[in-house]
């Protein structure tokens, strides 16, 4: 039972967060200062996610097999490898390091 309640709460809150922009302001646009900050949102969020997904373990920062995977991915990105290859390389290196 608590499973369904969990699903409902998380779904409602997540949709509210997603739709606040598109439905709240629509195509009207934001105040100038907020408008100027929009190009920075995606790079800041993605880079933050790279760090938390690679180095966070609870509230600690750790270096483990994921860091090796990300390092390999960074080399692939630098060599302009296609996205799928970057992802596969990261997973493969991490999996090998865990053997």
């Amino acid at each position, binding site marked *: 039972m608590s*499973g369904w309640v*969990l*699903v409902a*709460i*998380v*779904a409602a809150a*997540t*949709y509210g*967060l*997603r*739709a*606040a*922009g*598109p*439905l709240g*302001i629509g*195509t009207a646009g934001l105040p100038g200062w*907020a408008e*100027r*900050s*929009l*190009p*920075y*949102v*995606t*790079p*800041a*969020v*993605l*880079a*933050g*996610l*790279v*760090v*938390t*997904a*690679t*180095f*966070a373990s609870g*509230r600690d*920062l750790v270096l483990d*097999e*994921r860091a090796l*995977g*990300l390092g390999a*991915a960074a080399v*692939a*990105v630098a060599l302009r490898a296609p*996205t*799928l290859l*970057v*992802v596969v*390389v*990261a*997973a*493969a*290196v*991490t*999996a090998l390091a*865990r053997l």
Partner: protein
Amino acid sequence: MEATVRRLSIDRTVAAIALAVGAFGASFGVLADAAGLGTAQAIVMSVVVFAGSAQFAAVAALDGGASTVSAALSGIALNLRYLPMGLVAARSLRGGRLRRAAKAHLVTDEAVAVASRPDGSVDEPRFLATGLSMWVLWIAGTALGALGGSLIGDPESLGLDAAFPALFLALVAPRVREERGARRAALAGAALAAAGTVVLPAGLATVVAALGALAGLTVVETTRAGSEAGRERPRRPDPREEAGP
């Protein structure tokens, strides 16, 4: 019809994202099954929540004995970043209220990132193609993992948890290469996320990093624009003054 097909054209990058999301969905299905969430609950959760890390966090917390509300909060905290991501997509989503409401469900890091342009707007067809293919494979992956979890084995032994930071790195790389502003935003976001991981409650690091980076850069940008305008004024005489008789 031809236009529709072209609009949903899926290139290699979009396919790579969808495949990675499908694999991640399978690992969520495995976890949900192991955590005692029913198969139907796991699949419905993927349909209506459609947010990987939040679903993992919420289900793991519930399994770890947290109350329903605190398990939900640990998932929701991770999704706070969808508010700014939704703002990025907002101007670019076309159609009436109902259509925009449906499209808003596809606001995800990957779909916004792969469709975002340097001016801060979003290429809507690319956003929709990415978001829809991710959604379908996320649900299919969840079903596969929840039903056949024992066949897949432990997702961590396959390195799937490292696939996502790699995907985000690949998605942010083109912007970081070409734009100084994006480079600064990425550096600030990464540094603040690292600091936030240590000092903030779980799940809040990313959104705080994003907002901190935005605030800082917007202030810098505004100040610089102001001072440059001040410097340039003497070098550019007002045309009206030159236009003598």
